């Protein structure tokens, strides 16, 4: 909202309205009726009639006519033409089907005949969440939120400190944070001067074994470095019930930096959205590799998994060190907690994690998302985290309460500049900027610290309750669903018959590729057979310990309410197709894709819900009028009546609930005619081919 752009000269349409041959009614009055529905405070900056929205790049027959308005929030196209090809299965309550928030626009290109808006991220949000999880997301703005978190994790030896109240110490730390109990406020105040951004070590999370996860900026004061470092480490050790040592992880040295992440993402976007696939086709895998994106995702997962080993198995407290501690630390701290703590795999928990490790910890959303002017500091660090979370979800589908749609929508929400959540570089900046704004507009703030912005976690602002159910993962096996029964419902007992996993075989008593022993890795492209009679002993016992730990974990049945670890070999890290390909018509599989399985599973899970509810009904008493929240399913797709045998609905496609149609970066929306079908396919040959042809 600070991105209010100066009004430009009025738009003019150089196009004529479409000839209405079969329609008797003049289009003129119709268009006049097209009025935007504005949000409170939204101002129309400019508008123009007779605008044509191109749907396909190779034909104009699907184009829509209407009016284009530009407000201080979005560009909106209003039409009353039906949309035969664009199918939207969810509605963003703030954004229409044809709206693009200004902050989402990457680039505006003047085309010869029409204005094309290459959709960099997405035309319109997604679906909302929180439906089933009625709990409120802790925002970690208050003392009590932190205090509750400390108690929830059972951390002893840690306390909430308030020295940063009013941002007196650091402008990029939250007002309240958690520190070792043995450090006094006075000491902290002194130490703080030595840290970059005055970001002294603060607690993230504690394992039930007492080891803690702590993040910190670097100590810039070289003279004091040793001393302060010693004091801090001693304090963290003291806060550990076993007085275990501290393991320090220098993220700047081990992980890709934000420029590299940004460069990888630019290449990925180029590959997935902008490039015609015929050209990249044969080199698809190497092009994908060339972006380095998957490698980076893997690097973060791998590093986080190793820290899980430190915390869980070695029982060491872990300190994440990073220059400023506001980027890579966010990802690593979050991933470690997602792997270790099942709470963070629920919707509420995940949102609280983002509040705790991103929003309040001072992840510079404003800079990284480039909400204002094009920023040098732009980098999709948050998206990388969502991607890594998706990889975990892909590998352990039942461990997460939320769906991949939720993750994609969450990513989109960083582009809607209405929510305070993802708008600022730090909580302090929010207070400061909005206070200045309020003063300039003569708005009375009263007791409030700055203006209150809507929170993105209030998904009902964006999505209907029905759409929000798409956030729920039907595979999730949570502890939330109580199974109450008067002792008469027996627990679900599996038959002795075993199912399909066995087709792959045996438990993994083997190494699983979780840690790559660098010295054994072949150079790029060399395909040396890796079976050696005697694997050389590893010198590093640490690595061996970690490997042992991973191997053991993988050899046991996964406990979805415990630690989850990712498989990390190259073949296990995948491209998040829903997120990156949802605007690409070529990648759309009609009535196919994972969503069809999601649909079926939802129906089954819904049946289970209904039946267990029926069982839970008190015996003897008449069936009560079911209370509404029970009837309100947590699932988008509901099981129908007895005679309803729904197949895969026609509208499902692999990019559901997003619609790839109307993305002008792509060539065609309708199918390739058969005659042209193979013309693009190169018929390539090797010398080998000819030599051997018989």
């Amino acid at each position, binding site marked *: 909202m600070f991105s209010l752009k100066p009004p430009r000269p009025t738009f003019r349409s150089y196009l004529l309205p479409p000839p209405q041959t079969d329609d008797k009614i003049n289009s003129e009055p119709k268009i006049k009726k097209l009025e935007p529905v504005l949000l409170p405070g939204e101002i129309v900056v400019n508008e123009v009639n007779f605008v044509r929205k191109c749907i396909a790049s190779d034909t104009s027959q699907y184009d829509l006519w209407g009016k284009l308005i530009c407000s201080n929030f979005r560009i909106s196209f209003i039409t009353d033409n039906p949309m035969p090809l664009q199918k939207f299965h969810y509605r963003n309550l703030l954004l229409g089907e044809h709206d693009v928030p200004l902050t989402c626009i990457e680039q505006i290109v003047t085309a010869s005949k029409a204005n094309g808006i290459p959709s960099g991220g997405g035309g319109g949000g997604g679906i909302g969440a929180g439906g089933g999880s009625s709990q409120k997301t802790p925002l970690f703005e208050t003392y009590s939120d932190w205090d509750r978190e400390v108690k929830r994790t059972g951390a002893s030896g840690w306390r909430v400190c308030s020295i940063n109240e009013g941002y007196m110490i650091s402008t990029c730390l939250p007002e309240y944070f958690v520190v070792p109990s043995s450090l006094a406020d006075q000491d902290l105040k002194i130490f703080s001067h030595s840290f970059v951004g005055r970001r002294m070590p603060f607690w993230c999370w504690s394992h039930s074994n007492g080891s803690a996860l702590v993040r910190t900026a670097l100590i810039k004061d070289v003279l004091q470095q040793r001393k302060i470092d010693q004091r801090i480490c001693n304090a963290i050790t003291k806060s550990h019930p076993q007085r275990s040592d501290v393991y320090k992880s220098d993220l700047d040295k081990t992980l890709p930096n934000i420029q590299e992440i940004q460069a990888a993402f630019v290449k990925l976007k180029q590959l997935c959205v902008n490039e015609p696939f015929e050209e990249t086709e044969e080199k698809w895998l190497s092009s994908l590799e060339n972006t380095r994106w998957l490698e980076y995702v893997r690097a973060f997962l791998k590093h986080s998994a190793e820290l899980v080993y430190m915390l869980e198995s070695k029982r060491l407290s872990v300190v994440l060190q990073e220059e400023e501690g506001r980027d890579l630390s966010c990802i690593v701290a979050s991933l470690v907690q997602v792997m270790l703590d099942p709470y963070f795999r629920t919707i509420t928990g995940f949102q609280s994690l983002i509040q705790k490790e991103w929003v309040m910890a001072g992840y510079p959303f404003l800079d990284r998302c480039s909400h204002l002017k094009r920023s040098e500091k732009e980098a999709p660090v948050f998206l990388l985290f969502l991607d890594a979370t998706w990889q975990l979800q892909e590998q352990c589908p039942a461990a997460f309460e939320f769906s991949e749609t939720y993750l994609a929508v969450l990513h989109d929400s960083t582009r809607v500049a209405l929510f305070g959540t993802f708008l600022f570089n730090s909580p302090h900046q929010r207070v400061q900027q909005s206070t200045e704004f309020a003063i300039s507009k003569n708005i009375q703030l009263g007791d409030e610290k700055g203006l209150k912005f809507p929170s993105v976690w209030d998904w009902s602002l964006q999505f209907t309750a029905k759409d929000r159910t798409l956030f729920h993962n039907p595979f999730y096996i949570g502890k939330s669903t109580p199974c109450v029964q008067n002792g008469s419902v027996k627990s679900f007992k599996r038959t002795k018959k075993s199912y399909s996993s066995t087709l792959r075989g045996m438990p993994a008593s083997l190494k699983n590729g979780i840690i790559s022993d660098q010295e054994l890795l072949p150079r790029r492209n060399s395909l040396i057979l890796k079976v050696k009679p005697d694997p050389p002993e590893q010198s590093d016992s640490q690595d061996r310990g970690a490997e042992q730990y991973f191997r053991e974990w993988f050899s046991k049945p996964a406990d979805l309410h415990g630690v989850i670890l990712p498989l990390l070999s190259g073949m296990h890290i995948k491209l998040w197709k829903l997120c990156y390909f949802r605007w690409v018509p070529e990648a759309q599989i009609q009535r196919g894709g994972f969503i069809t399985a999601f649909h079926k599973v939802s129906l089954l899970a819904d049946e289970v819900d209904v039946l267990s509810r029926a069982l839970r009904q008190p015996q003897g008493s008449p069936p009560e009028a079911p209370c509404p929240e029970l009837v309100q399913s947590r699932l988008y797709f509901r099981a129908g009546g007895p005679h309803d045998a729904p197949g895969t609905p026609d509208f499902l496609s692999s990019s559901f609930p997003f619609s790839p149609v109307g993305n002008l970066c792509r060539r065609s929306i309708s199918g390739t005619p058969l005659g042209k079908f193979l013309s693009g396919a190169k018929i*390539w040959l090797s010398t080998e081919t000819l030599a051997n042809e018989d």
Partner: protein
Amino acid sequence: MEHIRTPKVENVRLVDGISSKKAALGTLYLTATHVIFVENAPDTRKETWILHSQISTIEKQATTATGCPLLVRCKNFQLLQLVIPQERDCHDVYISLLRLARPVKYEELYCFSFNPKLDREEREQGWMLIDLSEEYKRMGLPNNYWQLSDVNRDYRVCDSYPTQLYVPKSATAHIIVGSSKFRSRRRFPALSYYYKDNHVSICRSSQPLSGFSARCLEDEQMLQAIRKASPGSDFIYVVDTRPKLNAMANRAAGKGYENEDNYSNIKFQFIGIENIHVMRNSLQKMLEVCELKSPSMSDFLWGLENSGWLRHIKAIMDAGIFIAKAVSEEGASVLVHCSDGWDRTAQACSVAGLLLDPHYRTLKGFMVLIEKDWISFGHKFNHRYGNLDGDPREISPVIDQFIECVWQLMEQFPCAFEFNERFLIHIQHHIYSCQFGNFLCNSQKERQELKIQERTYSLWAHLWKNRGDYLNPLFRDDPSQTQGTLHLPTMPCNFMYKFWSGMYNRFEKGLQPRQSVTDYLMAVKEETQQLEEELEALEERLERIQKVQLNRTQVKSKQSEPSKHSGFSTSDNSTANTPQDYSGNMKSFPSRSPSQGDEDSALILTQDNLKSSDPDLSANSDQESGVEDLSCRSPSGGECVPGEDSGKDRDSDEAVFLTA
């Protein structure tokens, strides 16, 4: 037995797979049909059984301090390393295996000694399960335009074709024989699939012997007859699945492709599937990637791309999609060929069939499809999969590629197939195992001469008997959904195709995902069923109680019309394995409340606790009895799918019960 130099070696170390670190110490046995390794560890005594026919290569590696290593690569992608203490023993084992893995007579193959203890009648019935004449009937044949021809009676025209063939009514014996003389190996155009909806056909043949200019009137008439058999269309497509250059190179040898000028009303199209040699090398390269230990992102992606494997898979899919589109969208008949018309042609026709006809996406339909396009039309199973010792240049993973195409489709359309991944993997396994007679020999004729049906058993009957293991819980036999073609993306791109870890790395246990959608579904489905049953039982009980109360107190109490939830598709669940003993328990109402345990953990099916307790899959390792006499015990009995399930430890089974 005369080839076994040493039946038993003790203190052998087994390293199972690439990712395995620990070697297991045990005893190695060589039998007439299997290599068996029994671990010494007293608590598990885990057994690993390898069929000789599965052995692809055996490699002697440099001797180390622990002994002489033998590296055994299997055709089902298992990789084993045996470290034998004594050089002499190692050599004996090596020489024995070299011979055992390459039998020279069909009679040496496992199917001739495999005895699943079925009587004659059962065996015959097994062979009758898949009946191609029924299949042609299902397609709507014969009809006004197509008839069953007896021209190939006693294999007089073409010895690699079946005797029962459908040809256009207007194609006389004279035309057929004439056409056959103008085609490689006399494989004349014959019907592979009839698409009822549009009355068009997919026919198959080998390449014409056209050279640079040769013509054959009968062959031209034959193609015309095919066109006329679809009166709605004025042309047919001729699809040559080879790359254009390959086809041109063939002209020099007097073979080649149809000249559009000579044949009236044909549209000619090359597709570009590479030949068997390229495919063999490509698989080799991809397997090298699979054998990388913990590959990095670039090792994996570059290696996969350089192997070209997925590109070949795409080419085959493209061929199938082209044919399916021509038939369903353009309403034109298609004649498909490659060189001999038994490799690429089989791939292209069967992929097209799968796309077009939902029947082929069912369990039984898929068996029919393989029986029709592969077995009956003379795909050279023996040569391609090296069942008998032969020319290694003939070996190529042709049907493996088709099976992978099916998997790729299953990944894109998770609800469209009645069967699951396991079904495909087990079929692949048995194509190489030679445990059943179906895939023996190179043609129908050879199989008849060998009297396969009288001497061996049919895999189809075996799979059908165990169909519960092979069902896809996401599939619903719902006409509105399953009818019609699969709508593939209009421009299938390489990013659609994925590496099939479940096949090529299936013995690398640590590499497999911990959970799969299928597992969850099976669990949810079962739970639904149980809840339903309990609900019914509760309702019954409630009714009884109410009756009792009514009788006693004569109170009206017209309450609680028990809500009827029985509508929740019990019938559907019959496809899942019916839990056997619940109905018995039902009335006793076990007192344990689910909330006592970890309520929902029972739903958590992981790979590990899913370990086979299925007798069929684990029979060979289930023997509690001593293993001392293993060396002389002929492995028989119900043991059917060794391989990935052959080794088993009881711990994981206990885990099933612990979590339950």
